[in-house]
């Protein structure tokens, strides 16, 4: 097989991922015997990346806005008020109202909550399944590994949106189902990367030592392989979350995501863009801005985490 660039979910980066993460010797200058932990060294590199820090700040602000905002800003986003439809931003409605007379600012908060919740949950599901499957495949090796990876190849051949459209139309569009549907279809990239690292880790001396002391496959996977691939898993979970928010908003936009009364930012854009001709910009740009910022921030943070966890890329 050709030496392919790794199929990292998330934005392509300067560095093709795939080298084993930290735990190499501490860089020169550190006194011997006191190796800094992977996380501490990673945190230092991360802290030097100003764009990443800004992204973390923006993400925290958006999360606070969506989850804490409703505590301070009270609006009723469930009762249709036909006397106040599509009002432009003004007193009482800082971002105007939508076609049902619902307060747009309150809806953006609620929609942002849903998008973030589903994105996070789906991303975490993808991380757990992806890391486990990859670690097991790499540990097993041989024809079982080959078969397990061909299964992944096959799943990755499906354009994600086609698969999601099928799953959501057949199995339902509730919040729980969408989390499962998106989560269960976005772990293949993580698996490939973790499996690649597992192959390298399982031939290390400490794994051999552990096996000699009687450790079984389960212990080696859980105690040695998974902890040592945690960097890759965290990095790619970050990208998975961005991709999940992206996928969910697309599904909702084409009417196959969350159904009323639940709503996410993609669904709001579906409605809002229908009114584009009338110039109701407040129904389009606020939810769009929140969605784009969420995706952008997770991608920037993922990129910075990759730089932080991959010792190969660090200045020595």
């Amino acid at each position, binding site marked *: *097989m*050709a*030496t*392919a*660039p790794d*199929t990292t979910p998330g*934005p*392509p*980066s*300067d*560095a*093709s991922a795939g080298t084993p993460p930290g735990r190499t010797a501490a860089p020169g200058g550190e006194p011997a015997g006191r190796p800094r932990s992977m996380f501490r060294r990673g945190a230092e590199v991360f802290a030097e990346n100003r764009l990443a820090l800004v992204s973390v700040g923006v993400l925290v602000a958006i999360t606070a806005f969506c989850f804490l905002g409703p505590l301070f800003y009270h609006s009723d986003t469930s009762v249709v008020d036909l006397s106040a439809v599509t009002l432009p931003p003004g007193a009482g409605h800082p971002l105007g109202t939508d076609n049902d007379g619902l307060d747009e600012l309150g809806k953006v908060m609620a929609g942002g909550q849903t998008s973030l919740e589903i994105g996070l949950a789906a991303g975490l599901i993808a991380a757990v399944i992806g890391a486990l499957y990859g670690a097991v495949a790499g540990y097993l090796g041989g024809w079982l590994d080959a078969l397990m990876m*061909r*299964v992944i*190849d*096959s*799943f*990755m*051949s*499906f*354009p*994600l*949106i*086609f*698969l999601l*459209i*099928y799953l*959501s*139309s*057949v*199995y339902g569009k509730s919040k729980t189902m969408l989390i499962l549907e998106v989560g269960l279809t976005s772990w293949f990239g993580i698996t490939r990367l973790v499996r690649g690292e597992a192959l390298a880790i399982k031939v290390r001396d400490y794994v051999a030592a552990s096996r000699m002391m009687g450790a079984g496959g389960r212990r080696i996977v859980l105690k040695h392989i998974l902890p040592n691939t945690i960097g890759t898993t965290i990095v790619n979970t970050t990208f998975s979350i*961005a991709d999940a928010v*992206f996928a969910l*908003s*697309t599904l909702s*936009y*084409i*009417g*196959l995501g969350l159904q009323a009364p639940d709503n996410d930012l*993609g669904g709001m*854009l579906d409605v809002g*863009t229908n009114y*584009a*001709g009338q110039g109701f910009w407040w129904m*389009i740009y606020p939810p*769009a801005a929140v*969605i*784009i*910022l969420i*995706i*952008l921030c997770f*991608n*920037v943070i993922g990129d910075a985490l990759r730089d932080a966890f991959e010792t190969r890329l660090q200045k020595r």
Partner: protein
Amino acid sequence: MTTYLIRRLFQALVTVLLVTVISFGLMQLMPGGPVRAILGSHATPANIAHLTHQMGLDRPVYVQYWTWLDGLLHGDLGFDYIQQRPISDLLFNALGASAYIVGASLLLALLISVPAGLLQATRRNSGLDHAFTVFSFVAYGVPTFFLGFLIQQWFEDDLRWVSVQNQVATFGEALTHPQAVCLPILTLTITTVAGYSRYMRSGVLDQITQDYVRSAQAKGASRRRTLYGHVLRNALIPMVTLVGLSMPALVGGALIVEYVFNIQGIGLLTTRAALQSDYGITLAATLLTAVTTVVGSLLADLGYAVLDPRVRFT
């Protein structure tokens, strides 16, 4: 080369086979089964039993799979009971426009991202480099449907450069109505360039620091010769694989732009079918696109072997 070819072909074959197994599995896992999906929830038990037998669904699963696969190989993707037409007909009619959009976007994206990546890498950390990096990050963060919406707003409604009157479904129609397909292609190209150019940039950067570049310069090769004769050729190799790997994303992107711009391709057909709970078409289209992307990445890998002698002789 022959060994590589055979191994790669075998691998693709296994992948396609597994794709059909997955699709068949999805069909089997449908709640209520395919008969319920056709007859609806008010069917009588007798009707269900009759159609179940008629469709051969009372036979063992492996027999069903084999019959189904046999039909697939003969171009039989099933019958659509809602539109009362063979699914293969419906898909075939919509294939052209999708193929045109994907092909044109892919070509344009390569034509833009290869020079852009090269320029960025040779002028690393210049204003141009940073500008393009920012562009690709932002373009990557904007959902394709929203980018499509914005483009539609600007070019159709505000500037009135493009007015779309034609329904486009076949390859020929797409070819003869550039007005109808230029904006979807533009949208898909932008999202694709956002991904490709970053890879191209890092590919060139990887090559520029190699020893052979220094050797070439030491021998007195001009900058132009080093860049185009050596660096570019080597940097293009991983791009070929990237094209293969990005096929699913490209086809998925085509679905979204078809939806936004109302192009009667596979994507719109699938979306409409799913909205009407017409699962047969949705699944058949999913299967078809998956097989297409397997073939696409196979072709890319073969191109890789042609370009890179290291692959051929190992």
